[in-house]
């Protein structure tokens, strides 16, 4: 007969005890992994939003605040169509402290036969743009042609396909990397394409005209980069004073607001993780303490037949480590099942930018959650292992003899 491992025998022949330990440690790993993933995704989403905004100030029509705020559009993909006179762009450029200004025009497609899907369409000026171009350059290594579009990461079509907007056929030239914001559900085109789409929309009865302008003279937002060293607040005030029927919004304010919300969510998640851990560790400690009495006699036999104290402690720790490892792996898998399929739901519920980390980072978090859980399980059993190893085998075996 082959050798056998008392550790495996103890684990497999006490399935109730083993399952309870695995479940407890799975609970620890699940809370740690899922919590870390949510917080990390929120932080990454904020970072991505900061990078994508690329501007210090955004000037939008005054009505934008009431119709559909820019923040909602950026975070949740809420479609916003608001317009102002394009002459505002030159006024912005002429303002003291402004280094660059780039206009964008927003349009929304319809949920009707004329359009593939209902999306936000963002037209940008390739000559002056400093916001969208660097981002598009990551996916497309040539200028975006007329009647070509670049789609956000979550738009349901493929590169090379034709995307219909108000019966205009646009070629999908590239797909952008995910940002975890509402921009993932938008499509981008140059101004020529946008003018064609605006005209087509007009024919379908979607008006974008303002009081006196024509199609070529409207913009939805002006992205502003201030001169290095300029007081952004002061430039913002100047723009608010200079541009009529428009509002200049500092992006840092918007980001700070998002960052504050994120801080609140992070704290809540951290408190929940801490509560779960304290509860589970107390239960683990009690479970191990109960095990002391249950296993005294069995462990006295091991001592009697020549197992040293250190071997006995090692055996208990090995049992705990194996249970904790099994539990931690199950917990991480359950955590992944709880977090990954519901990314959109979490993003919508929290109303914050949410961008899941890459595979390498997820693997690192999983490994970390497993390591911390196994260490916590072993730490909880250390006292028990030490206490059991000091059991006096002689007197223990005499008890109830």
């Amino acid at each position, binding site marked *: *007969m082959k050798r056998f491992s008392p550790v495996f025998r103890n684990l497999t022949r006490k399935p109730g005890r083993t399952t309870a330990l695995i479940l407890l440690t799975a609970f620890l790993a699940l809370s740690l992994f899922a919590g870390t993933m949510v917080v990390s995704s929120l932080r990454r989403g904020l970072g991505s939003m900061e990078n994508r905004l690329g501007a210090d100030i955004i000037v939008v029509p005054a009505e934008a605040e009431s119709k559909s705020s820019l923040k909602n559009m950026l975070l949740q993909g809420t479609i916003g169509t608001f317009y102002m006179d394009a002459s505002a762009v030159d006024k912005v450029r002429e303002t003291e402290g402004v280094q660059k200004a780039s206009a964008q025009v927003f349009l929304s497609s319809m949920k009707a036969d004329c359009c593939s899907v209902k999306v936000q369409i963002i037209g940008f000026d390739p000559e002056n743009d400093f916001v969208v171009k660097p981002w598009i350059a990551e996916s497309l290594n040539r200028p975006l042609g007329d009647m070509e579009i670049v789609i956000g990461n979550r738009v349901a079509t493929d590169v090379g396909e034709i995307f219909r907007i108000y019966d205009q056929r646009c070629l999908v030239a590239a797909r952008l990397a995910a940002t975890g914001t509402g921009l993932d559900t938008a499509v981008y085109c140059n101004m020529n394409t946008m003018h064609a789409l605006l005209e087509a929309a007009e024919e379908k009865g979607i008006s974008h005209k303002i009081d006196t302008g024509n199609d070529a003279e409207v913009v939805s937002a002006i992205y502003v980069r201030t001169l290095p060293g300029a007081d952004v607040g002061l430039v913002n005030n100047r723009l608010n004073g200079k541009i009529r029927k428009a509002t200049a919004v500092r992006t840092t304010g918007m980001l700070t607001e998002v960052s504050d919300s994120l801080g609140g969510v992070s704290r809540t998640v951290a408190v929940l993780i801490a509560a779960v851990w304290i509860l589970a560790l107390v239960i683990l400690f009690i479970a191990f303490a109960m095990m002391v009495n249950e296993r005294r*006699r*069995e462990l006295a036999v091991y*001592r009697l037949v*020549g197992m*040293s*104290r250190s071997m006995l402690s090692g055996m208990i720790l090995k049992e705990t480590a194996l249970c904790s490892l099994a539990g931690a792996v199950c917990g991480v898998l359950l955590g992944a099942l709880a977090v990954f399929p519901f990314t959109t739901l979490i993003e919508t519920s929290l109303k914050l930018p949410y961008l899941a980390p890459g595979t390498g980072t997820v693997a690192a978090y999983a490994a970390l959650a497993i390591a911390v859980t196994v260490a916590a399980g072993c730490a909880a059993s250390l006292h028990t292992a030490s206490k059991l190893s000091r059991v006096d085998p*002689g007197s223990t075996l*005499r008890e109830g003899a």
Partner: protein
Amino acid sequence: MELRAENISRRYFRKRGEANFFEAVKPGSLILRSGEMTVLKGRSGSGKTTLLHMLAGLLQPSEGRVLLGDTDLYALEDNQLSRLRNEKIGVIPQGRSAVDTLTVYENIVLPGILYGGMPRTEAAEGWMEALDISSLRDAMPAELSGGELRRMAIARTLTADPAVILADEPTGDLDNENTEIVLNALKQAAKAGKAVLVVSHEDDAEAFADRVLHMENGNLTES
């Protein structure tokens, strides 16, 4: 190999820090020679089990020392003493002494595998046959009667093939037939060169003894 106890005693304090104690085993000496079966008789509470635990390296004497050959058991570190007990000293304790998660066979070969050795299957099967527990090979301890558990513990010690066997009331749970089987097995081990000590308050063991010792109120005497 002989096991020698030199002037060992064991005191228990009734109250910590005070001189109010009782002596479970009074100072005494003892030699267990190889090839000899010694029976230690005495009433319950006379100190027999305490003496056996001191001889087994399980309970440090208050005074004196215990030598296996030239090795002072209580001068060893725990890991050295544990290894020595695993290889040289077999203890058959009172009461249940089974690992509940191992089968009867696994319990019997357990001492042999603790330090990386292979199970002594042949010896185990031989002793199971001799002690009439072969049919229980794959049973779990929870399924066994007290007598069967006792015979399993005896088979475990004999399979380990130690130089010294210390048996505490090995026939306590057994009927006459099994008492004779067990005492014969221990006698056979003594004849094979082991030093055997059987602690018993019954008279059955005396017939198998080469030497009989008595314990009364912690005092050890030879008859």
